[in-house]
């Protein structure tokens, strides 16, 4: 059974292995030189000299001028984003659908191996390969991005125009670090297998896998992840310096943003509300129209506005990683169990 599964999976395994080897060589070469420029700037010892933010800014300026780092960063993260999808597409969906489509399932199920064992070995081998592929690639990307992630938390300004410098907890990089890609890969594989069993034709099952997996990858970080652990909410009165004060001209609508800012968090929302709890939008009074900015600021400060901020702190990075990986692995196990149940019920004819 193992020998058969390996024979059927050989070509895919060789392709994945060669792709991983190429990625590893490129990332290691580029990563070593990235570490050199990080160390040469003196960033590892910056805490002692109290110039972390300044050195981190210089580091990002160097990355910007050497275009290859931006290219490697986008390419490797883009690859890690799509690898689970590709695993579901090319390993998961045809795994069982092809057997149905070509009718080989009749031969397979009439051997001395039970259906359950047949499924367990097929899913097990492919699942193990998926874990290894996504895990190794994620390890490489996480290692490569190490200096950039550290510099981002030291600089505390968030992502720049080229997308470098986002905090690890922010959605643009969270899904391509450490262990979550492994969870996505197993989930995608199980999803492909289930759709293959239900649709029983390889190409439509592949299409369905792509669509469902892409939808999950869009919906999950935007609407679900932030609720896994309830966010930190801060209410602070708007006093002193304002970060932003704007008046829209014909409508007299106002935008006011207090000085609350905190580095190294995943900011979920930041609104200024009136004492009664409604979002503050003005209208601007004569103090703010045709008057000095000081007069306008003074008027705004008299309105007893409150700034409502909700965010996820960076300290929850690992909690989110384990939780999210656990959820995706659990869904994958449920999907695999469904496959087994569905196959057991099916007649051969």
């Amino acid at each position, binding site marked *: 059974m193992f020998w058969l599964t390996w024979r059927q999976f050989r070509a895919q395994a060789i392709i994945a292995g060669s792709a991983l080897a190429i990625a590893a060589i490129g990332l290691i070469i580029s990563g070593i030189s990235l570490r050199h420029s990080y160390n040469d700037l003196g960033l590892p010892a910056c805490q002692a000299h109290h110039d972390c933010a300044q050195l981190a800014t*210089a580091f990002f300026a160097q990355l910007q001028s050497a275009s290859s780092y931006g290219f490697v960063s986008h390419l490797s993260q883009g690859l890690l984003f799509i690898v689970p999808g590709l695993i579901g597409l090319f390993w998961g969906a045809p795994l069982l659908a092809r057997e149905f489509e070509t009718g080989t399932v009749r031969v397979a199920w009439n051997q001395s191996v039970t259906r359950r064992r047949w499924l367990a070995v097929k899913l097990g081998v492919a699942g193990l390969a998926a874990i290894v592929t996504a895990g190794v690639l994620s390890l490489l990307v996480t290692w490569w991005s190490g200096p950039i992630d550290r510099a981002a938390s030291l600089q505390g300004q968030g992502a720049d125009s080229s997308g470098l410098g986002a905090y690890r907890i922010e959605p643009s990089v969270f899904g391509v670090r450490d262990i979550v890609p492994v969870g996505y890969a197993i989930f995608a594989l199980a999803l492909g297998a289930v759709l293959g069993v239900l649709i029983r034709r390889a190409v439509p099952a592949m299409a369905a896998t792509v669509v469902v997996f892409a939808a999950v990858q869009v919906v999950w970080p*935007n609407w679900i992840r932030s609720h896994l652990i309830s966010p930190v909410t801060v209410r602070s009165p708007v006093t002193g310096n304002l970060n932003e004060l704007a008046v829209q001209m014909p409508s007299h609508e106002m935008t006011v943003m207090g000085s609350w800012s905190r580095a190294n968090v995943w900011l979920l929302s930041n609104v200024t509300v009136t004492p009664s709890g409604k979002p503050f939008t003005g209208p601007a009074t004569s103090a703010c129209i045709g008057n000095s900015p000081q007069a306008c600021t003074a008027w705004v400060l008299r309105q007893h506005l409150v700034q409502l901020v909700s965010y996820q702190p960076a300290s929850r990075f690992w909690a989110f990683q384990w939780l999210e990986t656990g959820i995706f692995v659990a869904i994958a196990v449920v999907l695999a169990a469904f496959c087994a149940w569905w196959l057991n019920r099916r007649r051969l004819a």
Partner: protein
Amino acid sequence: MIWLSWRQFRTQALVAACVLVVLAVVLLISGLSLAHLYATSGLPGCRSRNDCPVKLMDFTAQLGGAYRAVFELTLALTYVAPALMGAFWGAPLVAREFETGTFRLAWTQSVSRNRWLLVKTGLTGLAAILVAGLMSLMLSWWFSPVLKAAQFAPSRGSLSINRLDPLLFGVNGIAPVGYAAFAFALGLTAGVLIRRVIPAMAVTLAGFAFAELAWLNWVRPHLIAPVRTNSPLDASTIQGLTIGNGNLMTIIPGSKPNAWILSDQAVTSAGHPFSAPATHACLDGSMQACGASLGPLHIRQLLVYQPASRYWPLQSYETAIFLVVAIALGFLCLARISRRRLA
């Protein structure tokens, strides 16, 4: 023959049509509100140099949230659509006939093989081109207020974006049509040569991704020889200056608005990249003193760029090249198929 092709293509066409309709509705709703935002931002009528940047900042500040999400999703979809159409429409078109053996039936009818292939590829290929063209058209319309606003951006502003930006260039104008034709033809060719559906799909995806990346990085910048300027740099045209380990000073020159910058370097008068020990004035003097101390160093700015006026020439060359490659691949398929034995 057209009826048969349509029957075989029906499901795919229906799926594509549904995606297009959903996309059109989302883009229409979001696009109308974006156009309204631009019209009421005060930017269209603004004339004075002091007024426009403030209004632009207000406008830019409101571009986050839903607009950003719609933009990123549509952008990603427009980039992957040609690859998906190549893999799911192009690759199985002939490969499935080989794999299931139905080519023996198809090729022994009264319709010649050439005609069979031409009708099948013509119908599906045109559909792929149509889908890509419509997506590009819708995204271009949606994005036009942002491009109009970007004309008011100062050279170092937050919204210094233009249609030549590598990210936007591939989803605007007619380029997506070329990609779709190429991806489809690539899938078709992979199917004809490999004769198995799933491997052909994998090769199509990998081949298209590689072609796009290689094109973006190595070919497009040189389609038309870029403009090179070499001009003196002084304090007023420098954007930034960093002093690193060992007090080595590097200079970030100011950029050029409304152009696709390929390289922007501070060089010495001999043409080498500039890097020198920091001057005293820059280590602990004022900004002005630091700027003045740079004068005697004779630093020059070496700028390589494609001006915005080359947008349409670059678009037409790129589309023409992809279309020609697609047609060549199509002929290769015709030649392979007409020479193949039935057995």
